């Protein structure tokens, strides 16, 4: 549905996006992850035809954004990072204006209007001026605007920023509901945001796509970097000796020992699964009680930090200068 090929964007001497490629299939959600100023918004602005790429290509539903921007705009609902609301308009006026501007008329406009009001649950706010709304309702109005023409593609730039936890959950749920029939790209710098909405992510840092794929795959890579911990009711020396014998296990270190219970930490070369199983079997064979065996919970923060650090290291190895930080207005 959306295809981005070798996309680059320069603002004068600054490279905001550097050779980014990815693809989003129909009815998929793609999470755009990255620190502030990483280039997420720039990429979205190019997909929505607000900006033109310096080089590279973006196809939405097979249409090139630079060749037929108007056809692309018809297919996209866009909620920019700065919610584009006319504060002096009433909610209903604003939504009708956006609907008409996107070509809806008469019965169709009424039908879509009713639908988005229902979906975003702003029915009781329709007669209010937008500047009187709370942040959460403003955000919903912004979402309603992006949905009014029933676009197959939704581009949401930080849709939950500045909302309170309850509002975040609501918006997130709305996005998930919408994903049943729409292709969605949404960006965030809050990691937990992504894992609760989609499994499919791309991580952007300093204009480059540094990782792409399923969150659980990316997490697995981060797990490899982490030590495994075990707590056993067993004699210390025996545990140490047993662990050394298991293939793939090294760097065994004892964390603590008390009341006949020993806590150890070790690293695994290769897959963690078999090594973990071997440790469990060894404990069973020796009649030890296993209190704990496994890696500590990996958060997306760990994943993210691991990937960003790796990419920074790689950059230094390549001898390329790091791109300057870019802020988007």
């Amino acid at each position, binding site marked *: 549905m959306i295809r981005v090929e070798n996309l680059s964007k320069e603002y004068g001497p600054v490279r905001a996006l550097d050779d980014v490629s990815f693809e989003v299939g129909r009815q998929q959600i793609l999470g755009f992850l990255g620190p502030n100023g990483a280039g997420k918004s720039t990429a979205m602005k190019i997909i929505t*035809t607000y900006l033109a790429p310096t080089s590279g290509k973006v196809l939405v539903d097979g249409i090139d954004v630079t060749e037929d921007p108007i056809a692309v705009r*018809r297919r996209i609902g866009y909620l920019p990072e700065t*919610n*584009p609301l*006319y504060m002096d308009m009433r909610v209903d006026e604003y939504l009708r204006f956006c609907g008409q501007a996107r*070509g809806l008329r008469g019965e169709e406009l009424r039908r879509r209007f009713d639908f988005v009001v229902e979906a975003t649950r702003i029915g009781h706010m329709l007669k209010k001026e937008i500047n009187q709304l709370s942040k959460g309702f403003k955000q919903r109005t912004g979402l309603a605007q992006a949905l009014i023409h029933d676009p197959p593609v939704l581009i949401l730039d930080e849709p939950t920023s500045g909302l309170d936890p309850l509002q975040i959950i609501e918006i997130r749920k709305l996005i998930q509901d919408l994903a049943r029939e729409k292709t969605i790209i949404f960006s965030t710098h809050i990691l937990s945001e992504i894992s609760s909405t989609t499994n499919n992510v791309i991580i952007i840092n300093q204009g480059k796509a540094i990782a792409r794929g399923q969150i659980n795959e990316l997490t697995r890579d981060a797990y490899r970097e982490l030590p495994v911990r075990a707590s056993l009711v067993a004699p210390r020396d025996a545990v140490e000796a047993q662990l050394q014998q298991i293939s793939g296990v090294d760097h065994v270190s004892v964390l603590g020992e008390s009341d006949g219970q020993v806590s150890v930490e070790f690293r695994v070369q290769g897959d963690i699964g078999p090594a973990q199983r071997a440790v469990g079997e060894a404990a069973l064979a020796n009649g030890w009680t296993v209190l704990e065996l496994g890696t500590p919970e990996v958060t997306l923060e760990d994943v993210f930090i691991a990937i960003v650090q790796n990419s920074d290291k790689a950059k230094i190895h390549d001898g390329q200068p790091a791109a300057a930080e870019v802020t988007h207005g």
Partner: protein
Amino acid sequence: MANIGIIFRREFRAYFDSSIAYIFMIVFLLFTAGIFMSGFFLQGAADMRSFFGNLPLFNLFFLPAVTMRLWAEDKRIGTMELLMTFPMKAHEIVAGKYLAALAFYAISLAGTITLPIMIAAIGNPDLGAIAGGYIGSLLLGAFYLAVGIFVSGLFKDQIAAFVVALMICLFFFFAGMPIVVATTDGWVNGLGSFLENFVGITAHFEDIQRGVLDMRNVLYFLTMTGLFLVLNTLSLEGRKY
């Protein structure tokens, strides 16, 4: 056309949704009609020459205030991204916004219609000249407003848009003044009359105001208006790169 209408309606309503529109109109009417009336009975002539004669100067301040928000505000509050991702051509949005400003000015100008009615009641004015004056004022306004909307597209800050639009209009205002024309002709022969005929406002406006509707004068205003509207559209398209 439908797209122009949609943008026009929103922008036109935006003028009247805030109190600014009413304040602006009252000030405009008080100022133009008030200054005219203060000299009217002393002068003792049943015409509106001094009224129209002052408009190019007064409008230098009024019209950039009408146009300054047109793009600058959208840039400031973020609705620029909404407008520019509507399935519309840039020139349609420019036209919608511009026509809203022009309609607003036309209504303000129409508010002075009591002046010719009053003059006709107490004297015997040259109605052709007055009609010419109104047509000229509308054309003049069209030109100033086109400069204003173009400049507004370059700024995020409304005050900056106001001041720069005023400066550009002021240039066209001064360029056609007889003293400027005579002086520049003294420096470089022919440059002054070039300014008078192709750049400055004065000669064109005064001809129309006399009731002489020469196509060359009308074309001057329409060309200038078109030029700045095209520049506005180009600057919007160029913003993407």
